[in-house]
């Protein structure tokens, strides 16, 4: 008996060790990014790597922020993200209400559209979007990028918000209707407050995908002063022979911070949108 228990405990320790090893391997790149960002230049290029920068320096962050177009492109990203998300969430919420609360002819077709668009490979659309936007002089303009992003944020948001709406019992609204509320009244007084967390989570997730997007921004925006921060980061290396790895990692950290913070906040609420129904998370 005790031998078997000892064996079970040894096995448990074994699994735990494997788990820890996996943790270290998975997290290492993130750790290495942050660690490099705080090292001195000698430590960064040394052939014997320093694991923990014991005398952290902020100079790389200063360099990254002082690089041309950093603040301009951060501002561009913020404008694009804010406008895209604000418009998309309002429109998507209306459509989500239709999907979650009404049966109507053509509903299935609309669902196919919402799901199907999310599957389109973005590279497959760069050519027509570029040519059409060029016709209307919307390349190299943030408006062109905003409308492009909306086509992808909308379907995703409709689907996610629909999921949140399904979680709110219909009986609540019906009861209010019986008490004499109008449909609009129910919408404002009951649905909207209950949907608060769902709306926030969806907005944040839309914020993240838009902030991270690369290929459309790369294709549609040419001027360095018009680009978004992901494109700015992708051009960081440039053609320098001596790469400033410390500053690159500091810039990467700066780009990732808002996303990481937001993502960790909403991950639980949103993660299952793509598989919802198959998993009860």
């Amino acid at each position: 008996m005790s031998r078997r228990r000892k064996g079970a405990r040894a096995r448990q320790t074994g699994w735990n060790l494997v788990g820890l090893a996996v943790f270290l391997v998975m997290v290492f790149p993130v750790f290495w990014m942050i660690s490099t960002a705080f090292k001195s230049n000698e430590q960064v290029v040394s052939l014997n790597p320093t694991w923990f920068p014991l005398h952290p320096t902020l100079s790389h962050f200063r360099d990254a922020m002082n690089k041309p177009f950093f603040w301009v492109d951060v501002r561009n990203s913020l404008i694009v993200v804010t406008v895209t998300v604000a418009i998309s969430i309002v429109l998507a919420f209306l459509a989500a209400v239709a999907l979650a609360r009404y049966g109507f002819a053509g509903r299935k077709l609309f669902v196919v559209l919402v799901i199907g668009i999310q599957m389109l490979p973005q590279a497959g659309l760069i050519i027509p979007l570029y040519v059409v936007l060029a016709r209307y002089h919307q390349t190299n303009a943030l408006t062109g990028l905003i409308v492009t992003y909306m086509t992808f944020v909308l379907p995703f948001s409709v689907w996610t918000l629909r999921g949140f709406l399904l979680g709110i019992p219909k009986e609540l609204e019906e009861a209010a209707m019986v008490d004499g509320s109008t449909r609009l009244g129910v919408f404002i007084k009951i649905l909207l407050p209950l949907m608060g967390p769902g709306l926030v989570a969806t907005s944040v997730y839309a914020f993240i995908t838009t902030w991270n997007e690369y290929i459309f921004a790369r294709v549609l925006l040419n001027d360095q002063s018009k680009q978004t921060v992901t494109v700015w980061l992708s051009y960081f290396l440039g053609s320098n022979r001596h790469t400033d790895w410390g500053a690159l990692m500091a810039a990467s950290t700066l780009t990732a911070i808002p996303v990481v913070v937001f993502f960790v906040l909403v991950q639980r609420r949103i993660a299952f949108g793509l598989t919802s129904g198959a998993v009860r998370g």
Partner: protein
Amino acid sequence: MQESSSNAAAGTLLGTSRRRRRLWGRTVQGAVPYGLILPVLVVIGAILGYPLYWLVKLSTEKYGLFELIRHQGVGIGLHNYGSVLHDGVFWHTLLRTVVFTAVNVTLTMVLGMLLALLLVRVTTFVRVLLTSGLVLVWSMPVVVAVQVWYWMTNYENGVVNYLLSHLGIGDFYQHDWYATTFSQLSVVTLLIVWGALPFVVITLYAGLAQVPPDLVEAAEVDGARGWRIFLDITLPILRPILLILTSLSIIWDFGVFTQPYLLIGQAKITSGNYLMSIYLFEEGYFKSDFGRGAAISILMLLMVAVLSVAYVRRMVRMGDAL
């Protein structure tokens, strides 16, 4: 509506008007969902439908920089398609992309399943730690991840070469990970699998929680052991989730662009290491041959559409829930 219903004892005239009003009310009610989805439909139609029409049109035209400025293409029928389909590079790229996708998806799913099973077996502390780590990795923007991996695999002072050499795996001093196509795509694969694992593992782990413990116990009483239990109980229960995750991974990996494009780098991209999205980007956009690019886009969109059928079908069935 309320007023008219309070007027109970009314003549025939009032009755018809009430009926008409009720009919009107019902029509309005029926129009509500259409009104609600209209804005989304308009935006999608304008920004996606219109360009898709253009895509088809462009694919039958000679449309380069000159035509872009002139706003007018020259119709050449199906010449673009013929040119692409007779291009050896297209077929090589397709084959490479299919193999690449197969390897990426297999690695993602197998490792994902193993890690999910591992999460069940570790103690709570390790599980919370590992899950937090996975969420952290999940949250990394792709462009950021590419830069970090590029730095780690740098041949001069990248940490990967140092670690491999010092762990006694071999001499990787100044080993160039971007010297051959195979090596380039291998690093890209590792990057993609690393980035995809968190979503797969966490979703599968949530699915494992659905496996009823008494079912497993009953099987154990009947003498079933680990592997048999997994095959006969766990796998069938996870089947729907596995199918969805696999289809999503296939669709994503087949169309992947950012990771290979940025990690290999524009300077090192040649027709010898194209993946489908990059082929399209280089031949269509970079060389400003939009007509031919449009033909490639349509071929690629058709392939992805075929790959997506199973997934979209399943999701639409879920969408039926009201």
